[in-house]
């Protein structure tokens, strides 16, 4: 199927941190969630998708095009929302529109007015006096007003109240009625994804742990709970990480069927939430 974004063996080295050998495919028409702890490499990856950072090695393709030749074509078709405000702080929305709108061939003034009134954004107040939520709404209004096919968002929900987060997710779902549109967004609030994500990529310490559909994740990952005496060198192999307590153990597996075969009915197997997965993976990878 066609991929909107493709990262092939992408590596970016910093002094004290690196993103290594990243392979990621973002499929057209779906919501792709990007999870990882703070500092795991989410923003770095997104910046490489936006060509704000150039990878040391590997290849970044957006809409099957190369940034070297097609930077403008690519960016015409992307709407972006970043964690912090990137607009000139002293300006109001009217002026920001004056600066941003002429950059896009397909800027739609009516659509922009529609979103600013839907989000109840004041046009004459300078951005620096906006609350965090309003700044985010302003970025979103700009991102949605030029008929972008791909919407890239870096931590759009961080610092937002739960009600607006729900509204935002509803809005994103409305956007997805257009089957040609793709949303890629990073978050460390995994409950954002439970509702709307179709695919989930999980990055940990600069390495991709998985990039799967939500069904694959739900069907393969599980929390196994049982008595500690069931564990030995062999059976431990089934887990990413194991928590031991006086009352028993809890472990995360990425192969439920194998765990079922190994332990039979002697353990309790539960669905692992994304939060569970992040938490256990952070505890350290045992195999892989």
């Amino acid at each position, binding site marked *: 199927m066609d991929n909107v974004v493709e990262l092939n063996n992408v590596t970016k080295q910093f002094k004290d941190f690196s993103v290594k050998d990243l392979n990621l495919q973002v499929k057209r028409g779906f919501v792709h969630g990007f999870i990882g702890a703070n500092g795991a490499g989410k923003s770095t990856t997104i910046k490489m998708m936006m060509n704000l950072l150039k990878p040391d090695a590997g290849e970044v393709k957006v809409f099957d095009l190369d940034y070297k030749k097609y930077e403008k074509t690519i960016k015409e078709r992307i709407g972006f929302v*970043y964690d912090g*405000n990137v607009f*000139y702080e002293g*300006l109001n929305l009217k002026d920001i529109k004056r600066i941003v709108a002429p950059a896009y061939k397909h800027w739609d003034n009516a659509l922009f007015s529609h979103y600013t009134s839907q989000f109840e954004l004041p046009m004459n107040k300078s951005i620096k006096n906006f609350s965090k939520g309003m700044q985010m709404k302003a970025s979103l209004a700009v991102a949605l007003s030029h008929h972008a096919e791909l919407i890239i968002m870096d931590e759009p929900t961080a610092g937002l109240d739960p009600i607006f987060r729900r509204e935002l997710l509803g809005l994103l779902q409305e956007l997805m009625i257009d089957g040609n549109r793709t949303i890629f967004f990073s978050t460390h609030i995994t409950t954002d994804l439970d509702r709307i994500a179709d695919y989930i990529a999980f990055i940990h310490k600069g390495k991709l742990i998985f990039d799967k559909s939500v069904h694959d994740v739900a069907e393969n990952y599980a929390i196994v709970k049982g008595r500690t005496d069931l564990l030995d060198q062999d059976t431990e192999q089934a887990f990413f990480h194991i928590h031991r307590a006086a009352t028993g153990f809890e472990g995360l597996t990425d192969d439920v069927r194998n765990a079922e075969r190994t332990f039979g009915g002697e353990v309790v197997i539960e669905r692992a939430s994304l939060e569970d997965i992040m938490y256990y993976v952070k505890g350290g990878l045992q195999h892989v």
Partner: protein
Amino acid sequence: MFNLIRRDVILQKKQLLLFVPFTLFFVLLGKQNPAFIFLLASLFVPINTFAYDEKVEVNILLNSLPYKRSEIIASRYLGAIVYMLLATGVTCGLFYALSRPFTITDIAISSGLFLLFTALFFPVSYVIKKGYVFPVAMISFLALSIIGPKIVFHFADDLKVITDFVTSLSTPIFYIGLTLSILIIYVVSWMITTFIYQRKGF
């Protein structure tokens, strides 16, 4: 790309309101050399742009919009010329209105110095750390305008060969030569800055 040049006007609306009284003050004062006033007026917009453009967020914004990096830099270099011409024009108007004397040479000197200054400063501004661009710009400008002439006078004797050569040239050739060398420096600076900017990460 014209949008990028126009952007400075939107950004600096408030500062632009200050432009006329600021220039007027110096013209009225009448103490400074007209060339110096022209130069101050020309620097008005670009110096503010420097202060804006050192911000990482601004570069993230510009580079996320459908612009090529080479276009962003081109807009700076062309913009500087556009704003220099506009500022010079307005300042001329003020001189006329107040019927103060100035010569074409004043304008030529200020334009030449302005282009030289921006040509030196642009590449540097993309290398030095953020937060330092504005002070560095001010200090180097002051230093250049105070120390610069002294250095020239100091070396005037040593550079007799050159000065002799220069003075032996006819006036038109001298001006053409000067204009050409400034333009070459400007274009080379433009290329260097583009090279630096292409390699930056945000």
